[in-house]
């Protein structure tokens, strides 16, 4: 139930996926909003929330990666062609990389900015700056990297979501269900048995 098996994701993997996905997707409109508001008080708070959630994504993603390597990965459905598999796994790799590179470039912005605003994650933990050059141009470089990576990953995430919906509604396989319900296989079997009896 907690661990993955060959057919399904366990509860831990499922929680990692959805909690990180929710924060990750929330960070995009938050980042968009905070850079465009003209209310300085609100802007300061929004930046701190964005930084705190970014470090949360980074921390959770590191744990998730450890968990991923300590677990088997449920196999692809036999109906998937080689191109579909390459596209699916390619998207997963890009999204995994994004979960690290985007928070890291965000951390680089906070570290290289001449404003030198401390990062006080959820007003609980002080995160030290990365040892980077501090200048307006360094800050601009990391800001651009962070933004392009974010928009690119959002594009890939949309593809990932559409693919999951395609599997669920068109191909009617268990790809989406196994990321929602750690018991899905057992349940399907139970349902099949109930129908038979």
């Amino acid at each position, binding site marked *: 139930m907690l661990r993955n098996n060959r057919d399904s994701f366990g509860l831990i993997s499922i929680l990692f996926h959805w909690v990180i996905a929710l924060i990750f997707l929330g960070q995009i409109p938050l980042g968009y909003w905070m850079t465009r508001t003209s*209310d*300085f*008080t609100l802007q*300061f708070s929004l930046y*701190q929330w964005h930084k705190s959630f970014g470090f949360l994504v980074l921390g959770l993603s590191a744990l998730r990666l450890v968990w991923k390597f300590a677990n088997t990965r449920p196999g692809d459905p036999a109906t998937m062609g080689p191109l579909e598999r390459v596209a699916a796994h390619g998207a997963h790799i890009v999204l995994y990389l994004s979960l690290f590179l985007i928070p890291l470039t965000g951390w680089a912005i906070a570290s290289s900015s*001449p*404003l*030198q*605003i*401390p990062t*006080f994650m959820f*007003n609980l933990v*002080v995160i*030290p700056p990365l040892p980077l050059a501090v200048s307006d141009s360094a800050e601009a470089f990391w800001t651009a990297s962070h933004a392009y990576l974010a928009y690119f990953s959002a594009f890939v995430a949309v593809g990932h979501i559409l693919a999951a919906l395609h599997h669920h509604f068109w191909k009617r396989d268990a790809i989406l269900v196994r990321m929602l319900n750690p018991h899905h296989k057992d349940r399907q079997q139970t349902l099949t048995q109930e129908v038979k009896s």
Partner: protein
Amino acid sequence: MKTTTRLLTTVTRIGIAVSLAFVPLVAKADTLSQVAGSYKIQPSSRIGFSVGQVGGGGITGDFKKFSGVFKLNPSNIGQSSINFTLYPESVSTGQARIENFLRSDAVFDSANFPTITFRSTQITQTSPNTAEVAGMLTARGKTSPASFQASLADHSKNSITFHVEGKIMRSRYGMDVGTPIYSNVVQFDMQIEGQRS
């Protein structure tokens, strides 16, 4: 003969040295009664401040524009007083983005509240050359008690310099944006130079 001359020279030198050593004391005793009067605060004064931040360091800066007058009554310190006006628009930190933030309605709101004023209500001598200056500080339309510690740094016939320190809780003036990342306490470190008026 030579030795006598030498001895006399030495005695004279010692005499001069001893007399000189007493000069400051005599001068001070003379001028302390002479410092009584009204003074105008000179633009050469320095109004420095600092706000600490989590993890060490903080924001330091000063205000370039200010004005004020004070009255000194050394024989009865309680009769002394000070009125001081600060123009927050003139805040200087060496970082334009921080200055714009401080001037904005997030902090000083200098467009709507162009001055910060301090009026002493009670000056109490705390040692031969120090005093506690209590008064009312008005900023952003809010008035709250504040006190500063003044120490005599230098004085001559027509001018006098005090080193003044004090801590202000910015939350009392609706300026607590950024806490707890930035301390609620603003530390003032000022050099107040008065010219007899």
